[in-house]
């Protein structure tokens, strides 16, 4: 009996019905792998949590407050009050509750961040995609244009655009979106250029797939990682730019106030009422920090070149 089993071990392997024999493991997909890496990145997950929290506050916070962003209290006991239980972040020189104003500011800043980076995404992907995909002369001309724009300090372009467009929430988004797409376009073009040489694109071309199809089905999906990362990291940049514009009076119009405008008002009375700068300032820093941490984590998780 003993010898019998021993001998059976040397029987040829029956592949199809041999149990417990695994020929191939399920491959970890790109996205599952990326998610696993992202989850392990503590800073990125904290960033994500803070972003979710901020979005929640911005959306629902104002409904739980007893004041509105324009309620004024011009009595001496109402203006320029330091933080207290009644006014968590104090009040400004018109006696308006700063906490509510910062919450409304979050709506503006987050909206500008998200929509401006959506505009950046659209322009950048289309421009970079076309440039990289068509290549040759078209690419050359399109990249010259990018070089010229790159030759102007971008902050100046935004300022000039805002001077032309006039202050306002929509215009801020447009001005930022219309200016900061350069980086995105460059990255998309670079990705497309390197992917174009890959065998599977050659194979698709050889099989007679149309250019449109190759661009949409093969090139864009395969450069999606860097695109997502760049878009995420352009959110804090947009938030910063909006704050900057509001700070010099070119941002969102009063009485709505973005964080930049609040900080600008705060600086005027920095000596006497420092909290008027402190809270909007901290809000800007916290939001940018959260997006930067999350964006960095995304890059580490999605960048296929860093995978090893």
């Amino acid at each position, binding site marked *: 009996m003993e010898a019998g089993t021993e001998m059976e071990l040397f029987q040829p392997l029956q592949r199809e019905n041999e149990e417990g024999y695994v020929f191939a493991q399920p491959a970890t997909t790109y996205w599952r792998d990326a998610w696993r890496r992202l989850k392990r990145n503590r800073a990125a997950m904290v960033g994500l949590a803070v972003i979710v929290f901020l979005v929640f506050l911005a959306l629902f916070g104002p409904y739980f407050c007893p004041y509105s962003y324009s309620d004024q209290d011009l009595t001496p006991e109402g203006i320029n009050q330091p933080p207290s239980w009644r006014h968590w972040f104090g009040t400004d020189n018109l006696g308006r509750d700063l906490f509510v104003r910062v919450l409304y500011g979050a709506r503006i800043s987050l909206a500008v961040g998200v929509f401006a980076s959506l505009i950046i995404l659209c322009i950048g992907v289309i421009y970079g995609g076309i440039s990289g995909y068509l290549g040759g002369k078209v690419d050359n001309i399109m990249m010259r244009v990018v070089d010229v724009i790159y030759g102007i300090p971008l902050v100046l372009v935004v300022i*000039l655009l805002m001077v032309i467009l006039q202050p306002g929430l929509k215009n801020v988004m447009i001005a930022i979106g219309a200016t900061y797409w350069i980086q995105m376009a460059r990255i998309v073009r670079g990705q497309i250029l390197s992917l174009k040489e890959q065998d599977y694109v050659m194979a698709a071309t050889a099989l007679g797939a149309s250019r449109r199809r190759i661009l949409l089905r093969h090139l864009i999906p395969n450069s999606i990682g860097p695109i997502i990362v760049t878009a995420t990291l352009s959110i804090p940049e947009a938030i*910063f730019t909006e704050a900057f514009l509001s700070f010099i009076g070119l941002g969102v119009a009063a009485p709505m106030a973005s964080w930049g405008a609040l*900080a600008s008002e705060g600086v005027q009375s*920095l000596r006497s009422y420092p909290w008027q700068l402190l809270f909007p300032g901290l809000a*800007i*820093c916290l939001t940018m*920090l959260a997006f930067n941490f999350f964006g960095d984590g995304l890059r580490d998780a999605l960048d296929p070149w860093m995978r090893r």
Partner: protein
Amino acid sequence: MIKFLIRRLLSMVLVLWVIATVTFIFMHLIPGGPFTREKKLPAAIMRNIEARYHLNDPLPKQYLDYFRNLLRGDLGPSYTYEGRTVNEISADGFPGAATLGLAAVGIALLIGIPAGIISALYRSKWQDNLAMLLATIFVSVPNFILASLLMLVFALKLRWFPAAMWGEPSQIVLPALALTGFPTAFISRLTRSSMVEVMQQDYIRTARAKGLSNLAVVVRHALKNSLIPVVTYLGPLLAGNMTGRFLVENIFAIPGLGRYFVTSIYNRDYTVILGVTIFYSSLLVVLNFLVDLTYAWIDPRIRFTDSGKE
């Protein structure tokens, strides 16, 4: 090399021409002008003013005049600073701007590069984590917030430095620090990532296989290569630092170019806005050119092949 230089110079001129033209068109797209905003002026005076600034000439003539002046280096008169030209204003504001900018970038390089190298060499250790945490924080703090906070703490509360004065070395400290935060953080992140990448290159393994110590590998084989992205970033950094100064100069009441610029936005003083735009653009273009030269000096592949980047 000479071909490369000529090509770069030609493209510089082209870029500047395009920028000047585009800004000129922008100027005339802007609704209203510097004088329509104030109280309604009598028609006769209005016509007088417009004649004085040639605003009633046909556009092509204005364009040619503007360019003729521009070629002579004349940026035109200011609309709001009575009797002053944009050139005078720039000359006034530039020294302050340059001092501050160079000080800030100098500090940024001195701190950022070593920090980035240390981070890369101690990758994923506490040194790296700490440096990158600080870097991310400083990348996330807008310079006008940092400036206000520095002013609040060190000038108003502790009274270590003057709050709003200009002229003595002690007064440059706070604004320079405020301007240093972002570039330092950015340079250290850039240095780190490029250093990490270079350290994975095959030639680093070759150097180690020769028996070089870690320090020698870094100094002799990795540093030069990994500084290339940092050098590429220097042009935009210096120029961006200039624009970053708009607010910091305003907060610290420094008579720099940025302050004039922000004031001119409030006043719709278009020649100043355009003049400063062209001035900064030229600066950026020239800086980028210098960066390319440095690049060629570092990388023999560019020096000898007569072609640009990529």
